[in-house]
């Protein structure tokens, strides 16, 4: 068994090519770590030991037969991935962290899963999350809350809670998440890893259990910007199964960068440690020759209200299909949060309230989109905190849904306007909890965001850190 688990795709490949370890040894190491520590963290719902060994043996055979050439055909060969349990996986139980689907075994796989498999990645399991991806803390899972590996008393952020926690604990090299309003960026931020909320229309949602269809995106998560970029290259682009996906040639730019600082994201309610950390990030970018200008997104203050009309409306429609007839259990098995959102959504869509709430929210969404696109006439990207505070304690917001919803106040803009945003780790609080920031760019500017992220990490000589368990 190897003691040092590699922290990047390149490290994994180098170790495999230099015969420092085999893929099977990597699986042994990850599974041993999961078995020993995941009892405390609860990041996995299902561990796929049998599948992992089966695929690992094939990968070892490919490497011994073709050496370096095997990695040209399979760029993620030997890389261990775990999927948020809203990605359907053929033959592997998929629960959405809800008791409604506690014994559901899909007969097909999501496009993102298939594409990662085809790139040589090895699925080691399915990750815990807020049930149906409804939540900001990971506490809404009907399989128990996930804990933050950096401090077990704190939340890992949600809804892709297991996706962030499993990376921070070194239970896998790569993970997938979904981001409807911060659900990739928040756990990335709270667990000290990198996560991308892509442009709406960049990555197929085929086979992803739908939450709010006009907002849902599939997001790659890993320990470095480079690895998230490699995952993005492997899973983005049309698949003929999600009609929103565009065929795009992603390009960055060579000239100087200009980043906007939106004053509405730095106002009242922003924690001092988060603010100071962002200031230091901005100073580093300035040192690298990046220009900063003040910009304004005045309708940001309405974003979370717009989101909490549109999202529950779409949730109530998407969750209507769970009737317990063709698969899954009856609607009685829904947890409180799913019921609450279905109720709220049904209310804002009901006769007499549709115009006042749903139509109104869709119109304010137009105003938010326009402000965002106007800002990107002036700047290449926008920098902002991911959340107003560092990770909070488990239970702190559990009985007050509105306070929990406000955790996503800085996340909603990217989802409502369909733009990409990358969450990047940038240090720790004095209590040892992760800090980070997000960079948002115009639609399909992922390459530019990756470049900016890599510049920052290169300048600070960033090394991914793993939580001590």
């Amino acid at each position, binding site marked *: 068994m190897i003691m040092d688990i590699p922290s990047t795709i390149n490290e994994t490949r180098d170790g495999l090519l230099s015969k420092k370890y085999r893929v099977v040894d990597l699986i042994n190491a990850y599974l041993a770590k999961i078995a020993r520590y995941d009892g405390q963290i609860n990041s996995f719902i299902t561990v796929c030991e049998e599948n992992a060994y089966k695929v690992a043996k094939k990968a070892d055979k490919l490497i011994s037969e073709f050496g370096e050439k095997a990695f040209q055909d399979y760029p993620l060969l030997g890389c261990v991935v775990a999927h948020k349990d809203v990605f359907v996986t053929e033959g592997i139980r998929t629960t959405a962290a809800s008791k409604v689907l506690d014994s559901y075994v899909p*007969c*097909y796989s999501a496009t993102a899963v298939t594409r990662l498999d085809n790139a040589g990645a090895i699925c080691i399991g399915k990750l815990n999350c807020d049930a149906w991806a409804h939540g900001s803390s990971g506490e809404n899972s009907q399989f128990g809350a996930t804990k933050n590996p950096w401090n077990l008393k704190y939340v890992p952020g949600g809804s892709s809670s297991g996706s962030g926690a499993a990376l921070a604990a070194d239970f896998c090299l790569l993970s997938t998440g979904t981001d409807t309003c911060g659900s990739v960026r928040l756990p990335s931020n709270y667990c000290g890893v990198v996560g991308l909320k892509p442009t709406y229309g960049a990555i197929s949602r085929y086979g992803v259990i739908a939450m709010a269809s006009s907002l849902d995106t599939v997001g790659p998560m890993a320990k470095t910007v480079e690895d998230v970029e490699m995952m993005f290259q492997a899973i983005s682009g049309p698949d003929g199964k999600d009609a929103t996906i565009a065929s795009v040639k992603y390009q960055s730019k060579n000239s100087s960068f200009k980043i906007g600082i939106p004053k509405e994201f730095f106002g009242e309610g922003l924690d001092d440690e988060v603010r100071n950390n962002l200031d230091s990030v901005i100073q580093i970018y300035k040192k690298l020759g990046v220009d900063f200008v003040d910009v304004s997104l005045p309708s940001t203050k*309405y974003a979370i*209200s717009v989101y*909490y*009309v549109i999202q529950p409306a779409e949730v109530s429609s998407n969750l209507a299909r769970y009737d317990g007839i063709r698969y899954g259990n009856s*609607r009685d098995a829904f947890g409180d949060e799913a019921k609450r959102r279905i109720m709220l959504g049904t209310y804002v869509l009901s006769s007499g309230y549709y115009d006042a709430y749903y139509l109104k929210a*869709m119109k304010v969404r137009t105003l938010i989109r326009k402000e965002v696109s106007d800002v990107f006439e002036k700047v290449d990207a926008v920098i902002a905190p991911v959340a107003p505070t560092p990770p909070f304690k488990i239970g702190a917001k559990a009985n007050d849904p509105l306070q929990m919803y406000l955790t996503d106040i800085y996340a909603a803009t990217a989802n409502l*306007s369909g733009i990409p945003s990358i969450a990047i780790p940038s240090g720790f609080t004095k209590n040892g909890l992760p800090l980070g920031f997000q960079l948002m760019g115009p639609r399909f500017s992922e390459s530019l965001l990756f470049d900016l992220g890599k510049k920052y990490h290169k300048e600070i000589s960033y090394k991914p850190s793993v939580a001590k368990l």
Partner: protein
Amino acid sequence: MASIKISDIRHIAKLANLSLSKSQESRFFTQINSVIEHINVLCEVDTSDVEPTSQTTGLENIYREDNVDAISMLKPNQVTSGTDKIYNDFFVVDMILSEKI
């Protein structure tokens, strides 16, 4: 905009095919009202000449060929693999009419 009444909670639950316990009814009544109070802030925004946004791609009328082939189609046993309540390859559902004739 109006706040929600406990009778509305029961009505919405019926529309959404959800059964709620008494304690859920009263809890949701308080919690949903506090969310509605928060989203009522949208009233102050002037949207008189604004078109609604229902999606952000700008794409319209995306079609695909309606191909029926062995690769993209599920087999009947796959379609019915999620439940034991099957009769001759059909799903068994509860009776929705109240009387048998």
